[in-house]
């Protein structure tokens, strides 16, 4: 019964998100502002069953969405989308960003539904505030870096000399401001990843007696963090801006995505029992 409720709610959310994606793509390709607006409204509508599914899972499992692939994927998608909606509320002029965010959200929630698994109890060692901090900051890191990357993608599209580029230029703020906003989000993401790593290390220290054990998840998190660190140095000290910076952001985000979602598939490690 519980499976039916969660999967049912998730499918409703996926349907809304898929429709939202279609409208965003339609609005983007055919340059229809109204379609973008409806796309956003459908995304907000989809967030309601998505939130309900997450809360229901939380209620029946007695713990937050941090065990197994299903919970990790669906909560990451939820955080990313919520941050996008909050960003839209503050900066409605960035609506075309949905064309980058929404397909990713559909894919992630879809993957979560297909990797649905029964509830796994939380081991005793997981019941610490440090771990909760670690997980929340991982989700915030994903959300902020997602928006930073989406802005970088939009920046690259604006640079195109075709009709789409000029349409975007008319509807979006100055490309330099998009570029800088992408930088701000990425810089904030760097902080989030840093706190995520530190909180995880402190938890590991208490649980396993070691801050760092070169587990693949730890190592890849460090790689992501250093990559974002390189980006910030290049940007501040070497004046990297525009296309180069945008491409670097996209590359670093791909590594972060692999860290947060792909490692459980490729490696067997300390995190495996909880993310597979």
């Amino acid at each position, binding site marked *: 019964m519980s499976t039916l409720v969660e999967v049912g709610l998730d499918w409703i959310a996926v349907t809304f998100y898929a429709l939202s994606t279609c409208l965003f793509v339609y609005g983007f390709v055919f340059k229809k502002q109204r379609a973008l607006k409806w796309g956003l409204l459908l995304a907000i509508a989809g967030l309601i069953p998505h939130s309900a599914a997450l809360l229901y899972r939380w209620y029946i499992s007695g713990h937050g969405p941090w065990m197994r692939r299903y919970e990790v994927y669906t909560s990451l998608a939820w955080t990313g989308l919520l941050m996008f909606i909050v960003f839209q509320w503050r900066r409605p002029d960035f609506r075309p960003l949905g064309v980058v965010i929404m397909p990713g959200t559909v894919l992630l929630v879809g993957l979560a539904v297909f990797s649905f698994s029964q509830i796994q109890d939380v081991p005793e060692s997981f019941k610490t505030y440090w771990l909760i901090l670690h997980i929340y900051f991982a989700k915030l890191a994903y959300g902020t870096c997602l928006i930073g990357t989406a802005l970088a993608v939009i920046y690259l599209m604006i640079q195109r000399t075709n009709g789409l580029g000029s349409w975007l230029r008319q509807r979006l703020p100055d490309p330099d401001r998009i570029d800088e906003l992408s930088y701000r989000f990425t810089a904030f993401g760097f902080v989030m990843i840093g706190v995520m790593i530190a909180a995880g290390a402190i938890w590991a220290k208490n649980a396993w007696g070691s801050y760092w054990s070169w587990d693949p998840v730890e*190592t890849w998190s460090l790689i992501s963090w250093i990559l974002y660190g390189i980006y910030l140095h290049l940007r501040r000290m070497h004046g990297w801006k525009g296309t180069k910076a945008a491409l670097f952001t996209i590359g670093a985000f791909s590594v972060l995505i692999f860290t947060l979602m792909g490692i459980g598939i490729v490696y067997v490690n300390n995190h495996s029992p909880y993310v597979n």
Partner: protein
Amino acid sequence: MQIKDKLIFTVTRLLRYISSIKLALIILVTTVVLLTVGVNPWYNFNAAFFRSWLFTLVLAVLLINLVFCTYKQAKRIFAKPVVKPVLREIGAITSDTGFSQAVRGCLVNAGFHLTVDNPQEIMGYKGRVGVWGPVIFHLGLILICIGIFLQIVFSFSGRIGLVPGQVFTDLQQNYLSSDYGLWRNNGESRFKLVLHEVKSKFKDDGIYATGDISVIKGGEEVARQDVNAGNPLGLGIWGFYKDEFGYYVKIRIITEDKDIPFDVGLSTFRHENSETYRDIFDNPDVPYKMSIEFIPDIDSVRGKKSYKPNHPAVRLMVQNRAAQNGKVMFNDLVRIGQTAAIDKNTYVKFEGYFPWLTLFFKIEPGIYLINLGFGVCLGGLVLLNLLVPQYIRIKLVTGAEGSRLFIGGWTSRYQNSFQHRLTQIKSDLSQLFSEEEN
């Protein structure tokens, strides 16, 4: 003299290179490459790769570069504490009455603290402390790196196996395994350890155990705590962490002429819980090869809160080692106290069980620096992100043709947003001045 000059020139260039961002970027890229190689899924080098001299060398160069860069950064801030932004003209004004309270209000409302305030010039700043953000962040990284190096050189870790009531003496031979840092300190017998009790919590999904331990130093108990995963016992730079937990199962094999009692230690993985504990027992002193699984509660029903340690049992699979095909002689459950026949005139008895625990003992000379480094890093990151330093300057220049108004601003980050803000302030001021003139 020429040689001396050359030497000074070379050293200066070297120092400049060591403290350069270029080197920092090279090291960071090298670190990323090494990390990717070390963690590749096809041939995972594991921790050994990250302890290699190559990796340690890269970290050492990174630390040196960090120290020099941070010093240079801090020096720059000390040398130039106040920034005087370059001015741009807003426009000419006819009435030269100086700055009104409304102009000051406009800047104060924008969040600026005014430092220079006279009829000809106003200067203000906000988020000035933010300039220190990168320095503090890098300082935190330096502290963490020094802490890591102290750990690499002076650390010690050892695994201690304990059963309730047992006293452990800190001697090399008493450790199950030990690992020294680069500098081997033989200062053993620093303490004695007593495991008073293994406290087991029976939950729906298995057993969680904690160990009530005392640390005795100089004949006195200096600490006592229930050690659990997530709740280690810390004594300054010493730390006692829970590792494995399990049971010794006491089994007896009885034949017509022999009575062989033996214990089998069965454990769960590290600190996690378990419902069953299993192992293969293959000891030459015992004529059988056995697969043993200890079940703390044979009547447990998982997920229905009926998990109690009242009915323990072992699942035994006994194989005849002498027989070539290792024929299975017995494969069944044996409850506590029960004797089961495994062959003609040969019996096996499950006599009892008792818990055991292993602890990690660690000496961590860098722990305080690492903890401090984490805190400092976090502080730096907060400053870096929340306080973006911004300076503003408004100047009235009076000449023969009348007064002209200038504005200038400076920030270290997010130039576009700041320029946008500056333009807003500029238009507010223009409006204000034109209103005042009218």
